[in-house]
């Protein structure tokens, strides 16, 4: 086998789901020992192609060659046996178990003297497995604690466990799905070091991503997917973020929302004073003594790795009643106390003050996935005139407002009847934004507003948030995407373990300085 034989070669792969041609004539060559980035908007077909490579889907036509040999498999386990492994975006780890147990599960070995027993009854050779793992970890520079329960380990370490899991199964080709989505900038750096080391040892890495800056930092070669086809296949050395972005979208995009000058500070639309929240299960308080405000006409960004109290803060802002007994401190919103001592406003009353919310998890918190766009537009507006008339829903009013809104917010397809679950992530998000802006909010909460949406939609969503600010609304932006925080925020607060550990004004912060605080670096 020479270096010229590609590690992976896809030739004319086709895949169709019902009426949708998910992949059409996909050609891809991945050089052995290289890092190959697969980029594309949501629904562009990159995941479908990788799932065929990984054995999760069967191609309708075309062939898959691995190290020059034509292969086809019926399930991911066959692909793993052939040396192809995948690290999923959501890790597949059992929290209470340690790294060794997690890695070995499903691929247990036993000593030769137990051969005579049926496989299921052979004792597991834990010491042998552990020795092998330690050797692998040293070889590839994947440092980790093998004894702690994985749920106590940092996300970056958990990811290393997932990678080691594949190496333990002798994978030579690793597919990583959005590997940096949950990492701090520092952890991302470490991941990149590890990936380079893997390549130096002869492994081949495929990264599915939408973060173009990271593509430029790590990839050797880039393949761009659009609308089910490969539209670009170029070495990284000859391209730029701008070129990749316009290839992905099929037109020129303006990536960084130009930061307009910070307007005058207006009235406080949100005022949080010494807010604490006790945990429901004991242990550390998820929110500790938080004080900050958001003023009319400004965007306040909350940066932080997920799970540092941001979700709880959002819950408190919107559902103070449910948390009244566990919380301390006060929240005032648009001049009204929404949480103060024993008084707490109901969610509907808070939203009626003029609060719009883009929720963190649009599937769970924002949409009725199986219901049509029309009803999703109505959700939350259904108690207001003109949509509610004497207890009845005025379908006519909803229909005309929704039709206008999906036009204005460019929700595709332009149908009020299609189920919300059938829209792409970006269009779902635009639908939510259309709905929340329908009430002309004076205070907007935008939590992870561009998570999992395509580049074109990101641009649109950022513009809309900036327009809300220009119209005098105050915006609280919670995001784990530092680019987004840095591009949009007039002030930045960094949350770590339930506290605000750093505050910056526009222009003062960099990705590095935010990253250090996000990882708790200022404490150590």
């Amino acid at each position, binding site marked *: 086998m020479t270096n010229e034989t590609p590690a992976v070669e896809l030739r004319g792969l086709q895949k169709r789901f019902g009426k949708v041609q998910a992949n059409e004539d996909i050609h891809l060559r991945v050089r052995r020992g290289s890092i190959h980035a697969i980029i594309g908007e949501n629904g562009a077909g990159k995941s479908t192609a990788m799932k065929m490579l990984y054995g999760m889907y069967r191609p309708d036509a075309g062939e898959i060659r691995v190290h020059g040999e034509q292969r086809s498999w019926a399930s991911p386990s066959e692909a793993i046996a052939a040396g192809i492994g995948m690290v999923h975006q959501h890790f597949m780890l059992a929290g209470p178990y340690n790294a060794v147990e997690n890695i070995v599960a499903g691929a247990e070995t036993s000593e030769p003297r137990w051969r005579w027993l049926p496989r299921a009854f052979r004792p597991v050779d834990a010491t042998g497995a552990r020795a092998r793992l330690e050797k692998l970890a040293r070889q590839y520079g994947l440092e980790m604690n093998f004894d702690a329960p994985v749920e106590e380990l940092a996300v970056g370490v958990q990811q290393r466990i997932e990678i080691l899991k594949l190496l333990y199964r002798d994978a030579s080709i690793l597919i990583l799905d959005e590997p940096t989505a949950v990492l701090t900038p520092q952890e991302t750096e470490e991941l990149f070091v590890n990936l380079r080391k893997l390549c130096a040892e002869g492994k081949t890495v495929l990264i599915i991503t939408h973060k173009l800056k990271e593509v430029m930092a790590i990839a050797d070669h880039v393949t761009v997917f659009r609308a089910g086809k490969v539209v670009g296949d170029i070495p990284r050395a000859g391209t730029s973020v701008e070129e990749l972005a316009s290839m992905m979208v099929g037109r020129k995009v303006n990536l960084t929302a130009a930061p307009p000058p910070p307007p005058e500070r207006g009235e406080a639309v949100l005022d949080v004073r010494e807010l604490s929240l006790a945990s429901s299960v004991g242990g550390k308080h998820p929110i500790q003594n938080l004080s900050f405000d958001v003023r009319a006409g400004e965007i306040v960004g909350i940066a932080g790795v997920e799970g540092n109290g941001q979700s709880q803060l959002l819950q408190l802002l919107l559902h103070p009643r449910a948390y009244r007994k566990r919380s301390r401190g006060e929240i005032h919103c648009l001049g009204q106390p929404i949480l103060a001592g024993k008084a707490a406003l109901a*969610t509907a009353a808070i939203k009626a003050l003029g609060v719009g919310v883009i*929720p963190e998890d649009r599937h*769970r*918190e924002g949409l*009725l996935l199986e219901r049509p766009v029309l*009803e999703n537009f109505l959700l*939350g507006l259904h*108690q207001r005139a003109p949509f509610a008339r004497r207890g009845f829903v005025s379908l006519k009013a909803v229909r005309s407002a929704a039709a206008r809104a999906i036009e204005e917010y460019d929700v595709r397809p332009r149908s009020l009847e299609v189920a919300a679950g059938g829209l792409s992530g970006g269009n779902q998000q635009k639908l939510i934004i259309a709905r929340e802006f329908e009430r002309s909010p004076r205070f907007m909460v935008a939590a992870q507003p561009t998570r999992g949406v395509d580049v074109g939609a990101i641009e649109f969503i950022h513009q809309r948030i900036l327009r809300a600010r220009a119209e005098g609304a105050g915006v609280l932006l919670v995001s784990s995407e530092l680019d987004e925080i840095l591009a949009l925020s007039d002030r930045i607060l960094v949350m770590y373990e339930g506290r605000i550990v750093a505050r910056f004004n526009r222009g003062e912060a960099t990705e590095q300085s935010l990253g250090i605080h996000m990882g708790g670096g200022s404490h150590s």
Partner: protein
Amino acid sequence: MKVAAKGGWLPLLQPILAVAAGLAAGLAVAGLAGESPWHVLKILARSAFGSPYDLGMSLFYATPLIFTGLAVALPLKAGLFNIGAEGQLTLGALAAAAVGALFPAVPWPWAPLLAGLAAFAAGAFWGFIPGWLRVRRGSHEVINTIMLNFIAAGLASWVTLYLLKNPASQNPETRDLGAGYAIAKLHVFGDAPVSSALFLALLAAAAVWVFLWKTVAGFEVRAVGENDVAARKAGIRDGRARILVMVLAGGLAGLVGIGEVLGNAGRFRLGFSPDFGFIGIAVALLARGRPEGVVAAGLLFGALHKGSADLDLETENVTRDLSLILQALVILSVSADGLWDWLKKRRTAP
């Protein structure tokens, strides 16, 4: 047509196929028991639809099943499983009878109205309890409604045997209603006890449809059932919506009392219901929770109930229990979603 616009005839086809498959399997069971399936089918059909009287009896049984079917279907829309229709209808009927026995002098248009309100209120209260417990205390409505069925049965025995015992009867029944309480019988069906309560059932189904699809409260209920987290975020008080549907469901089940007490017996008879509340679960499942489907499924199960009654007399080897087998098989085939999806995929696959 609206149905056609939302995915053609497929959604309608499934329950029809399921019923056919369930019937076929049930008749095959009869065949195994040594009875000609064709003979059994003929008896079923003749007994259910053979004469105006038979048809009337089928409709008489269908009436409570439509009410209980709605009482299960409505909470399903909010993600709640009401197993308590049996208890709710028992108390509804008891309340109607109690009002009629305690205030016999009330004249006609007011008397049935009063008894109907009492039936609704009693059932609604029995639905409120598990709704409230679920929302405020987090205890599961399935457990609580089952428990409340037993309590309702005990309560009904006590009231019937000790408080309102009919002195003129050997049977466990309450005293007779006043004369003003009787509601119109449908005489086209001969001696069958089917009454205008049938129209009330149809009206109730229409009202539930309007509630679910046209009102703000109905939208909130559906949103809660679809995704309660998103509903809460949208300012919907999900607890209130849940309690509301349980109250309405209990009330609907309670209305069974109108047909039975005002339209048929003229008093409350202990054990009058051959598990209408539980068959209502089957009705609601077959209807996939839709009010219009509940009407169709209620009529079907009413006919099945009547049709199988003659099996005892006219066959050697099977009894009326065959109707239970048929119901079970229909429900099984309705709930065979996996099989259904597989069939559909084969149709659409290239």
